[in-house]
């Protein structure tokens, strides 16, 4: 079976990560199917962000392995992950604040360029045509996420909710196979959350992009995802469809604070 036919896009196999002896994540395995929206939930400090960082190579897991699109590896650098089709957003928004919305989205297209820098400097060969194509694709993403009115605004001047959307646009511009979203709705009000979940579902349907996201708002998570993985104190305590997970006593305990 070749990788493109396999129904599993991403799987983690007994991944453990610790910082100077403090276990952040221990012995976690789960699989994400192609085309699904998978939510990672759990209380603060459960190890969700750490796990995301392992998937895109910011952190190196001490034990276990990650398999993505048929390739198993113990560690990859973030740049390699991007080349393989993993794009992400960050919990604390990591945009290029001194650049415009359009330029930010264009950096997401960075890997799609094929012309050499000499061609680009002299505007010969492939460079001219390529410039137009990149710009067109970037504009499409901007339109899709409805941020056209701000396309030439410096990102640092935009309000928080819009910055979150620009970050999503930059990730989407890379045409990723897997989109990692670290708390895409943190700090938003109810209507902004609804709007953002709408975008995530649209991306998933329209482009068939597999999404792994971290979210605290259980209501949003249950409505949005096909598959929920629950972490607590760095361990996996539940894994399954939203309804199943919601009934799991251990999940209820973790969230409602029943004695462990």
């Amino acid at each position, binding site marked *: 079976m070749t990788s493109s036919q396999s129904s599993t896009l991403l799987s983690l196999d007994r991944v453990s990560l610790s910082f100077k002896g403090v276990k952040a994540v221990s012995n976690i395995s789960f699989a994400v199917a192609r085309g699904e929206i998978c939510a990672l939930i759990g209380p603060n400090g459960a190890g969700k962000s750490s796990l995301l960082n392992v998937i895109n190579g910011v952190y190196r897991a001490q034990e276990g392995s990650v398999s993505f699109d048929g390739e198993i590896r113990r560690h990859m650098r973030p740049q390699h*992950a991007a080349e393989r089709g993993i794009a992400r957003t960050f919990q604390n928004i*990591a945009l290029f604040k001194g650049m415009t919305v359009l330029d930010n989205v264009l950096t997401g297209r*960075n890997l799609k360029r094929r012309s050499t820098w000499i061609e680009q*400097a002299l*505007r010969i060969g492939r460079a001219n045509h390529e410039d137009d194509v990149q710009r067109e694709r970037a504009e499409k993403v901007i339109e899709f996420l409805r941020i056209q009115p701000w396309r030439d605004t410096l990102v*640092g001047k935009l309000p928080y909710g819009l910055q979150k959307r620009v970050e999503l646009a930059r990730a989407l511009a890379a045409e990723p196979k897997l989109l990692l979203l670290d708390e895409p709705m943190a700090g938003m009000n109810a209507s902004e959350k609804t709007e953002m979940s709408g975008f995530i579902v649209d991306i998933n349907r329209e482009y068939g992009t597999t999404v792994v996201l971290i979210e605290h708002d259980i209501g949003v998570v249950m409505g949005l995802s096909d598959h929920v993985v629950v972490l607590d104190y760095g361990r996996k305590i539940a894994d399954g469809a939203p309804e199943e997970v919601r009934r799991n006593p251990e999940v209820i305990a973790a969230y409602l604070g029943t004695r462990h």
Partner: protein
Amino acid sequence: MEFFFEVLIGGLLAGVMYSLVAIGFVLIYKASGVFNFAQGAMVLFAALTFVSLVESGVPFWAAFALTLATMILLALAVERWVLRPLVNRSPITLFMATLGLAYIIEGGAQALWGAQVHGLELGIDDVPLEFGGLFVSQFDLFAAATAATLVLVLSLLFNKTRIGLSLRAVADDTLAAQAVGIRLRRIWTVVWAVAGLVALITGLLWGARLGVQFSLSLVVLKALPVLIIGGFSSVGGAIVGGLIVGASEKLAEIYIGPLIGGGIENWFPYVLATLFLLARPAGLFGERTIERV
């Protein structure tokens, strides 16, 4: 009036020499948000290497190529042993690292090539040329032409290619830059290699002026007011800043100097820079950063 213009032109051309030093700083600042304290040491290192090669009988262009190759090797080494271990650290950490690097490069240059003063002859006569009654130094014109060529090449490289966009991205947020697949290591190496080329050209022109010696690493002090006036993140700003510093210090010396006892050329640029800091902290062309709280 003729005398005024002669002073002005002389000042502007001297300013080009300051701009050259400043451009080296701007490049690295643009790519990492860091003031590279080692730029002066790189100027010294490049000039010493070149002069020592020429003195041992290597032809001019071969020596130039060899020195450039050395500067590229230096860039690779800096990326491997200084920048890579400090990836995703704060700019102040990187700044401290360049401070240490400056001493290593300075020490290395002198350990390798010795500490004596070398004369450097670029084969350009420093006789004044006359243009419609105005006398202009031939050497200064040559320096200005070199700087203009350099700026043209740099602006093509950084404004028309994706290296430019990547550069700004890396300076803004290295973590995010890595996540969108920008090759951090390659960008850093390219930038430090280009800064090495600028250091080499600066070293040759200033070396021909002052002689190649330790004090060459101190010409960078003149780059500070240039950067403050022009802005740390703009090559164009470095040029304009250099011209302003060059012209104003010469004019001030001639016209204000006698009123307060003379010798003001050396400190006037710093006064000017201080005034700019009060009125326009980002410089003329610098990016004004927006901090949301």
